């Protein structure tokens, strides 16, 4: 048979695992531009539409005026977090870049705080004004009276500034409002977080995946969702524990619509079943864990019968789910989740999740959780001197012994209000929307009113930003350098952010802003020496990564860093006091907390009230993208998910608008009702992030309802200090 060249090419493409048409194999930005005749430029960089930081390739072309324009964003096939794909938000990043509502120039407040009156000033004026005010406050109250809140890449640069000034009051909502509890708890149990930025879940090889909340599909972290879909395609059994029929539940073989707040009961019962029915991995537990006997004893009381009553789930399903886990162990997992600050007793729930994973032997096993990659990166500070030791301890941990290093935002806020133990008089807010991120926004407003000075480094005129005394506009991620980023997936790697185009308007990268402030504050040694790009080059060298390759490919993997599974040669290391998986936590015992999780019921809604729960939309990131034109058009407002039978009972129709009133008599704006079978009768649900108050956000202003305004109440986890935010109850007011 003649073997033509045409056929050969087809076979070649086939054996590469795809159709005859494949996306242009991406070897490098330069090669791709050349292959296409040089009409477009390609810039590998990293997405910042959310914090997954996918590898992006920006296509840049000259527009008819000869100006560079970003025309398309695509996933970098070499980057393990994007694998050639971008989610809707990543695709729509151009919308953020060209959003006409962006902050365009530095501004100084001229009116009352919050009334939105500002004058545009030069960078020189804005920075001098900022430095002057900071100096005044430091003189009077000391450097620790300056606090910083951040989320995302600007954080690093301002952390440097604060540390150089001698303040340790640095906090991130990604700890106490998000995954802090999870990370701290898994460290107690396994001596490791279950993730650095990526959860180390080996879903593509799993046989059973259990999701507590964790609404994959709506919670859109790119590669994780790709793997979830792959698992669904492989026929993995998905068990979804969620009071709401989420997208993930729609893919599940078993949906367990649990009574909100009772998850720990289910988990402890499963532990009991696994142990009493001998379904756990005995050898694994013997080899790697301590405290099994105490655990076995402690969970005896949690019977399926009791659990069924407590959780409002069918007893048969409870038992069946546990047996499925046992049957397919260790290629199974209880997904560790991400946003876990739910009820104020979350540490123990997350502990129970970690413990089940241990019993099933899934840590370090194929289809379970893979091990952290090898390949360590030395810390790099570009020759800056050591930071001074702050004269006052930071307040950021409060009285929570296991609050991690990221700081408790609500504690900083409380101290700002009370000045106890010392006054906090200035806030630097860089890339976080505090009024939306922290529960009880009234307290955030109160704290802000106590400040002498507030600085916002942001890209959009959100409400929080428009409370600041000085606004320092950052350019968007497509216009700046950031990084280098350590990427830890199955392997270690390095990625970067580099500008696709020059900054539009009079905006600057956060590294520059923070560095200029260092200089103005007389901290030249901590400022960036030349440019961030040069610094990145030096860092790349220190990490033994070729800068040219990195800048051309966007991602460089560290050779031989992948060692995902336990083998005789590749033994796991548990950085706990005992060096083992601590089913019984000695550290918790030391601090007088339950060393083994105990079930503690949560308060349930009273007559006529519904628990308010919230989550994500795949097309938005919190509040930050609501105004992004191409995403706003996909989802303009959030709806209130209300059980259909409850809606009928209340005489509320699908598509009607209602208001919500919470237990503290806070009333929401009117919102659309989604009357649905997809949620339990005792709770209502909405997507978080909507209901912007800033009129400068022309699209997002007043579209939808802000869950946070209704979250006036929060319950702090006594162990890690996370703020449980699903402890608010609302009733439905029809008149609207």
């Amino acid at each position: 048979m003649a073997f033509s060249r045409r056929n050969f090419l087809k076979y070649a493409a086939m054996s590469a695992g795809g159709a005859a048409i494949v996306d242009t194999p991406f070897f490098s930005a330069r090669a791709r531009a050349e292959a296409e005749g040089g009409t477009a430029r390609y810039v590998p960089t990293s997405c910042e539409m959310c914090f997954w930081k996918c590898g992006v390739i920006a296509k840049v072309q000259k527009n008819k005026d000869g100006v560079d324009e970003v025309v398309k964003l695509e996933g970098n096939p070499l980057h393990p977090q994007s694998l050639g794909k971008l989610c809707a938000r990543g695709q729509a990043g151009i919308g953020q870049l060209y959003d006409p509502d962006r902050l365009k120039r530095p501004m100084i407040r001229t009116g009352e705080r919050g009334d939105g009156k500002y004058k545009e000033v030069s960078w020189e004026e804005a920075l001098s004004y900022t430095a002057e005010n900071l100096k005044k406050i430091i003189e009077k109250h000391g450097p620790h009276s300056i606090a910083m809140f951040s989320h995302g890449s600007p954080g690093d640069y301002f952390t440097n500034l604060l540390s150089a000034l001698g303040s340790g009051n640095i906090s991130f909502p990604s700890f106490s409002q998000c995954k802090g509890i999870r990370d701290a708890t898994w460290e107690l149990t396994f001596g490791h977080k279950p993730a650095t930025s990526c959860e180390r879940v080996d879903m593509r090889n799993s046989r059973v995946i259990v999701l507590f909340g964790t609404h994959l599909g709506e919670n859109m972290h790119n590669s994780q969702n790709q793997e979830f879909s792959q698992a669904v395609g492989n026929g993995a059994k998905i068990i979804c524990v969620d009071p709401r029929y989420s997208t993930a539940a729609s893919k599940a073989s078993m949906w367990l619509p649990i009574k909100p707040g009772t998850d720990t009961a289910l988990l402890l019962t499963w532990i009991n079943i696994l142990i009493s029915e001998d379904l756990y991995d005995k050898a694994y537990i013997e080899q790697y864990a301590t405290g099994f006997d105490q655990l076995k004893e402690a969970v005896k009381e949690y019977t399926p019968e009791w659990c069924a009553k407590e959780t409002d789930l069918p007893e048969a399903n409870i038992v069946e789910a546990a047996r499925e886990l046992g049957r397919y162990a260790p290629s199974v997992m209880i997904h560790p989740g991400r946003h876990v600050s739910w009820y104020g007793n979350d540490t123990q729930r997350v502990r129970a999740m970690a413990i089940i994973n241990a019993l099933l032997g899934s840590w370090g096993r194929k289809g379970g959780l893979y091990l952290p990659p090898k390949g360590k990166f030395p810390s790099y500070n570009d020759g800056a001197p050591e930071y001074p030791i702050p004269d006052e301890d930071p307040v950021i941990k409060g009285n929570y012994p296991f609050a991690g290093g990221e700081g408790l935002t609500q504690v900083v806020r409380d101290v700002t209000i009370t000045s106890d133990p010392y006054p906090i008089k200035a806030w630097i807010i860089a890339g976080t929307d505090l009024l939306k991120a922290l529960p009880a926004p009234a307290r955030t407003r109160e704290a802000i009113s106590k400040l002498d000075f507030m600085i916002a480094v942001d890209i959009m005129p959100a409400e929080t930003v428009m409370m600041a005394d000085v606004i320092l506009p950052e350019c968007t991620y497509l216009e700046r350098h950031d990084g280098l980023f350590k990427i830890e997936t199955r392997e270690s790697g390095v990625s970067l952010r580099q500008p696709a185009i020059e900054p539009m308007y009079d905006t600057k990268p956060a590294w520059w802003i923070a560095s200029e402030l260092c200089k103005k504050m007389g901290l030249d040694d901590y400022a960036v020496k030349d440019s961030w790009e040069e610094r990145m080059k030096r860092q790349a060298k220190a990490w033994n990564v070729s800068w040219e390759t990195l800048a051309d490919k966007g991602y460089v993997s560290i050779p031989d860093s992948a060692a995902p599974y336990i083998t005789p040669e590749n033994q796991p290391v548990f950085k706990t006091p005992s060096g083992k998986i601590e089913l019984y936590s000695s550290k918790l015992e030391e601090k007088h907390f339950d060393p083994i999780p105990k079930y503690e019921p949560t308060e349930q809604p009273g007559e006529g009230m519904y628990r308010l729960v919230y989550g994500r939309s795949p097309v938005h990131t919190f509040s930050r993208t609501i105004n992004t034109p191409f995403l706003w058009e996909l989802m303009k407002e959030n709806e209130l998910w209300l059980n259909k039978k409850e809606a009928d009972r209340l005489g509320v129709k699908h598509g009607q608008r209602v208001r919500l009133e919470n237990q503290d008599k806070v009333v929401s704006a009117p919102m659309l009702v989604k009357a649905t079978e997809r949620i339990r009768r005792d709770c209502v649900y909405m997507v978080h992030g909507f209901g912007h108050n800033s009129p400068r956000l022309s699209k997002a202003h007043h579209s939808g309802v802000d869950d946070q305004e209704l979250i006036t109440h929060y319950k702090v986890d006594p162990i890690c200090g996370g703020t449980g935010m699903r402890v608010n109850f609302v009733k439905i007011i029809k008149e609207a």
Partner: protein
Amino acid sequence: MELSITGANAITYPVMHVWDWRVAVYLFLGGMSGGLMSMSAINYIRSKKGPVDSACSWQIPVMAPIILAIGLFFLNLDLSRPFHAFWFYLAFKPVSPMSWGAWLVLAIFPLMILYALSALPNAVKAKIKHAGLRGFADKMQPHLLKLAKANFLAGILLAIYTGILLSSLVARPLWNSAILPILFLCSGMSAGAAVMIMVAKTKETKLFFTKVDIWLIIAELTILLLFFYGHYTGDAAHRQAIMPFFSTSHDFFPYFLSIVIIGVALPLAIVLKFLEVTGEHTDELTASGLMLMNASAVLVLIGSAIIRFAMVYAGQLSGYGGYM
């Protein structure tokens, strides 16, 4: 079922609204001008001696192209790229009724004009300023009968074509029926006859077209019934398609109303016509007789217009499957 769609276009979701009153007006006027062509031709042909009624024998042929032109004006208003309309005539697409329509109109227009010119009485011709045109009209006069015959056929084509366009749209079950063109033909003809009745000067002509219209209306009502019956016994999509006409729900009330009005207007017009035809007759028209005739003619026009409007709008509600 709970349905959510992200990325639907407003022009097709939740219901299609591609065409509006402009197209309905075009279909009505197009059908009517076809009716006028045929009816005026009949008026001429039925009397070998010459025009039975001098007024309607030349005014109607003049009116027909004007009405068609007005109709086409509305159609053009509906085009979202009217300045590209010349592309209609740079292509002939044998399976596209739209293309046929465009060419048909192009062929019919001269025919209508020639017919109108040839039918002009001398007194009217005398008023034409342009000598060449006057001479041309004179030259055409001998061909009047041939032109009338041609116009009769062309009128039928024109009237039926408006229905063929819609009926060829397989995606819209309400329209997708071979009966629809016949319905439109019939209603166009009956509208034409109604206009004849109103414009005619002599009682004889009026009565003649009244009789013609009676048969046309009876046919129209029968065809309408068959149309609905055909849909009712058709597949689910066809059955669903006619439901708006038989539902009093808020959303569909206009369609229900349209059927009620047609159901009242057309029979009432017949009754009035019967009264007139069977009534006592003198040579002169009595004032009340005239009123009866005109009133019934107006009812017919209303019925005919409503049929077009109702079909254009209701057809766009219909479709296959939807989201199942």
